[in-house]
């Protein structure tokens, strides 16, 4: 990573739609809704956008046509959650290279109303060969993570109650977030009583499926300082992929690529895990939170279960994580809303769920493509 880029690009504006079931809006509509909110957030208009990065919305040209945006730079990415981090890093590179100055990143997801299942005949997880395993009943990203969790349990003695501690902490945060879809706290007994979907994972270990949209406006740090809201500086970023053999769960729970990304992102930010005031961890399923904590060095290998069991990830505790409620309880916006929450935390906008004096917040995702960003309240 080019350390000279630390703090040079900032998030100027963020926008989110309502979350839930919004059948009257398609993915384009949700994207426009979110983009209007993001532009309002930083006092910019559609004419100020000169870079456009589209995710999950089917077609970039159609999106530009319905919004009247004629950018200098355009791209579109597949609708997989790993691409939120990739898109944000692309925007940083585009801005640093001068290909565009003010980049709109727009995401729209009508998966709930469209009946997305993430398993069965429509299963598109992984690298596209899933149909080969359907005859054995093998399908869904949930099952992939269940296989990983089973190995973690057998190797390290991790328990499903420890997953319950993660789910309970995030639901507790969602209870403080008026935008969250699932806001009713539950007990460990209620967690244990939830039905298994793919054992060892229960319903409460799975992310939600809901409709919504998210947009972010990124620009140079200089320009961001002149806009409507305090900039959230991108202080560090890193990315690494592990594609070889990735039809199957990684033997190391993605620790290898995560350690590479951790080295890059912390070196760039001039900070380490202990300096983070809050974490936003891509929680498609509760086990990825464990894998991420180990991979990024928040706890020793194999000890993530006991690490989270006492509620350490809850607000007011040592390591507030997914303060919005995350994908498990706020909204399944495939990483986008977690990045927005990181921005809102460093701005101090989170109300009842605000982390006191949040200066550095880290986003990370454990998947075949690992990404991480560190957002800072201050440029250095």
């Amino acid at each position, binding site marked *: 990573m080019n350390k000279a880029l630390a703090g040079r690009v900032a998030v100027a504006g963020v926008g989110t739609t309502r979350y839930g079931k919004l059948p009257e809006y398609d993915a384009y509509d949700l994207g426009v809704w979110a983009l209007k909110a993001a532009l309002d957030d930083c006092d910019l208009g559609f004419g100020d956008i000169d870079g456009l990065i589209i995710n999950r919305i089917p077609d970039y040209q159609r999106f530009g046509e319905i919004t009247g945006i004629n950018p200098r730079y355009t791209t579109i990415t597949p609708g997989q959650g790993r691409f939120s981090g990739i898109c944000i890093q692309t925007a940083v590179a585009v801005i640093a290279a001068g290909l565009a100055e003010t980049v709109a990143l727009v995401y729209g997801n009508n998966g709930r109303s469209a009946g997305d*299942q993430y*398993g*069965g*005949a429509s*299963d598109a997880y992984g690298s596209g*060969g899933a*149909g*080969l*395993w*359907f*005859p*054995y*009943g*093998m*399908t*869904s990203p949930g*099952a992939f993570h*269940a*296989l*990983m969790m*089973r*190995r973690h349990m*057998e190797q390290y003695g991790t328990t499903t109650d420890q997953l319950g501690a993660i789910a309970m902490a995030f639901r507790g945060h969602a209870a403080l977030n008026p935008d969250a879809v699932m806001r009713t706290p539950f007990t460990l007994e209620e967690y244990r009583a939830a*039905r*298994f*979907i*793919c*054992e*060892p*994972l229960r319903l409460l270990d799975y992310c939600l499926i809901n409709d919504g949209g998210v947009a972010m406006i990124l620009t140079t740090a200089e320009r961001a300082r002149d806009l409507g809201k305090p900039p959230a500086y991108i202080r560090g970023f890193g990315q690494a992929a592990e594609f*070889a*053999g990735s*039809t*199957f*769960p990684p033997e190391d729970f993605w620790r290898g690529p995560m350690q590479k990304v951790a080295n890059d992102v912390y070196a760039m930010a001039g900070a380490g895990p202990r300096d983070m005031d809050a974490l936003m961890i891509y929680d498609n399923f509760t086990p990825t939170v464990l894998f991420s904590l180990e991979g990024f060095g928040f706890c020793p290998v194999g000890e993530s279960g006991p690490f989270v069991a006492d509620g350490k990830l809850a607000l007011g505790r040592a390591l507030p994580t997914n303060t919005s409620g995350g994908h498990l309880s706020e909204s399944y916006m495939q990483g986008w809303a977690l990045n927005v929450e990181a921005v809102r935390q460093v701005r101090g906008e989170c109300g009842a769920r605000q982390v006191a004096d949040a200066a550095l917040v880290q986003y990370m995702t454990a998947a075949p493509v690992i990404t991480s960003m560190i957002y800072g309240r201050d440029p250095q």
Partner: protein
Amino acid sequence: MSDYAKPLPPDDPANRPFWDGAKRGVLMLQRCLDCGRHRFPAARYCVQCHGERSEWVATTGAGIVESYCTFHRAYWPAFARDVPYDVVQVRLDEGVRLFSNLVGVSRERIQSGMRVRACFDPVTPGVTLVKFAPAE
């Protein structure tokens, strides 16, 4: 006509030697003629040396269970009668991984690291699935 309602493997010509082998009770894998690495599903080029020359070879079908999970939800109606059912992740001795089902063992006895051997389940006149049983 078979009344078998579960999904069948995609009829990919490149993988036919695997499924033809299963019908004969043999687990076949593609093997790189340049570096010797085995692979499945079929690919034109070797992931290790990127060589293009390959052959299909018979294997012993021996491997270990690396992990397993239990489906309580049926993603296809035809699996509704089976839930809860188990899926195992097997690593063959040749290094190739497969998802499959274990037969001839109760759920309580499934564990990671157990040795297994391929067995063959003719589910339709045209298709035999490769499953696994505990190795003797």
